[in-house]
């Protein structure tokens, strides 16, 4: 654990000094401030912000993560020649990547809320932050899995963009097609499964359940609300997101431990 913390400290230092991360924090700062000015301080601003978070957090995390991991490959090799085991290095690098991105997101969103005194719905704001951090962990894990499996930087980038496009844009289209194509059948269970099968949908549902606005966001969210109203739905969404971070993370660790550098 000590080794993991030591590695994480320096990766964190490097990522925090990265201009893209600072720009990312600044973007959320400006966008949140603008939404609070135009949409008011209620649930509407949080829903507008949620749409931004669901698109942007996965995109920035998976692209930045894949590029950073590829760029750090030679330095990681140098670290692997030190008396540390591969698992510790992996965990240190992963935490060093996800923590500053999460911190940039949390700071960028929460500072304008605090400055505007827009704390009428603290539960929803907290959950928005949790959703953003969870998506950072999920897409951070996917980024290192992609970077670990692709030795070519451009192919890695292409795969990352494909994952982002599939989970944020194409998936909604697929769900819509599925709903229309099987409109005569009972869709509750399949739609529930489809929600669990996409981390972006899970994050969306998690927040909409809290805001009691599921009907605004399509079929999967309302089905989820009917099936898992109350804390159980929240728990399942959180569990699903944790699994979405854990499974690619474990696969990436496995690949990292076996890999020839």
């Amino acid at each position, binding site marked *: 654990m000590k*080794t993991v913390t*030591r*590695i994480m*400290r*320096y*990766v964190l*230092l*490097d*990522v925090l*000094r*990265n201009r893209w991360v600072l720009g990312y924090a600044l973007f959320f700062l400006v966008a949140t401030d603008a939404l609070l000015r135009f949409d008011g301080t209620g649930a509407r601003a949080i829903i507008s912000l949620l749409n931004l978070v669901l698109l942007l957090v996965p995109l920035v995390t998976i692209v930045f993560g894949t590029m950073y991991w590829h*760029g*750090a490959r*030679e*330095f990681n*090799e*140098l*670290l*692997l*020649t*030190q*008396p*540390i*085991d*591969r698992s510790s290095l992996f965990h240190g690098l992963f935490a060093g990547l996800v923590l500053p991105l999460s911190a940039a997101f949390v700071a960028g969103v929460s500072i304008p809320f605090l400055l505007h005194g827009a704390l009428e719905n603290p539960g929803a704001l907290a959950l928005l932050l949790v959703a953003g951090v969870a998506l950072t962990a999920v897409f951070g894990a996917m980024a290192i899995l992609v970077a670990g499996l692709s030795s070519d930087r451009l192919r890695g980038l292409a795969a990352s963009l494909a994952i982002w496009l599939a989970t944020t844009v194409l998936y909604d289209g697929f769900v819509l097609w599925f709903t229309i194509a099987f409109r005569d059948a009972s869709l509750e269970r399949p739609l529930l499964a489809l929600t669990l099968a996409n981390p972006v949908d899970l994050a969306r549902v998690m927040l909409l359940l809290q805001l009691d606005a599921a009907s605004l966001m399509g079929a999967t969210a309302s089905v989820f609300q009917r099936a898992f109203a109350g804390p159980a739905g929240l728990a399942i969404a959180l569990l699903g997101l944790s699994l979405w971070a854990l499974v690619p993370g474990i696969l990436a660790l496995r690949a990292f431990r*076996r890999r*020839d*550098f």
Partner: protein
Amino acid sequence: MIQARHVSKSFGAIQVLRDIDIDIPRGEVTAIIGPNASGKTTFNRILLGLVQPDAGEILFDGASIIGASAYRERIGYMPQAARFPENLCAGDVFEMIANLRGTSSGRDNELLATLGLAPVLCTPFRQLSGGTRQRVNAALAFLFQPELLILDEPTAALDPLSSSILKDKIRKERSNGRTFIMTSHVLNELEELADNIVFLLDGSVRFAGRPQELMAATGEGGLERAVAAVMRKPTIVCSEAA
């Protein structure tokens, strides 16, 4: 100090090392030479734990290194070119590696001083030239007074002055009992420094012994010509290790 026995490694269909045996004696400079893709970098990488061999065993003072990590505390490594995190400074990296290794063995700051790195310790790597980064690499390899130093083309990216400082340091540390494994295409340089030569060709050891023995076997007066002779006609040398 190091005994490699029956080590084989392939990447896909390409067999890089074929059942090789190599001994690295303590307190001497062993040069691993051979043409491109002969397997020398792969052997070093196996020694460092970066590559897992398909078969065989490598012993470091009698203990297997396969799957282990603690033995690397005794190794200093200078890669041919290392890219450091762009936003960190050399000082950050020295501290980071010191933290990871522990500082029980003390530090050897001699190269840091003689290579003139003090003024750039707080400069981010993105602002440093390739040559300066390579000087950082050299200083880092020696910093923690390791017993074994693995230097991969150590002078390739260095200016003549830095190269000469590094070679003096290698001589000095060899006389202090440290062990070196070096790869280089500059054979005149190896002739100056190497006590032993391991010559790899197509993943097999073609020769292992003193440079003078290789020159005698080929009838050539210099190491460069002797190596060229083996590469032209691989059958002319009877390897002592093969």
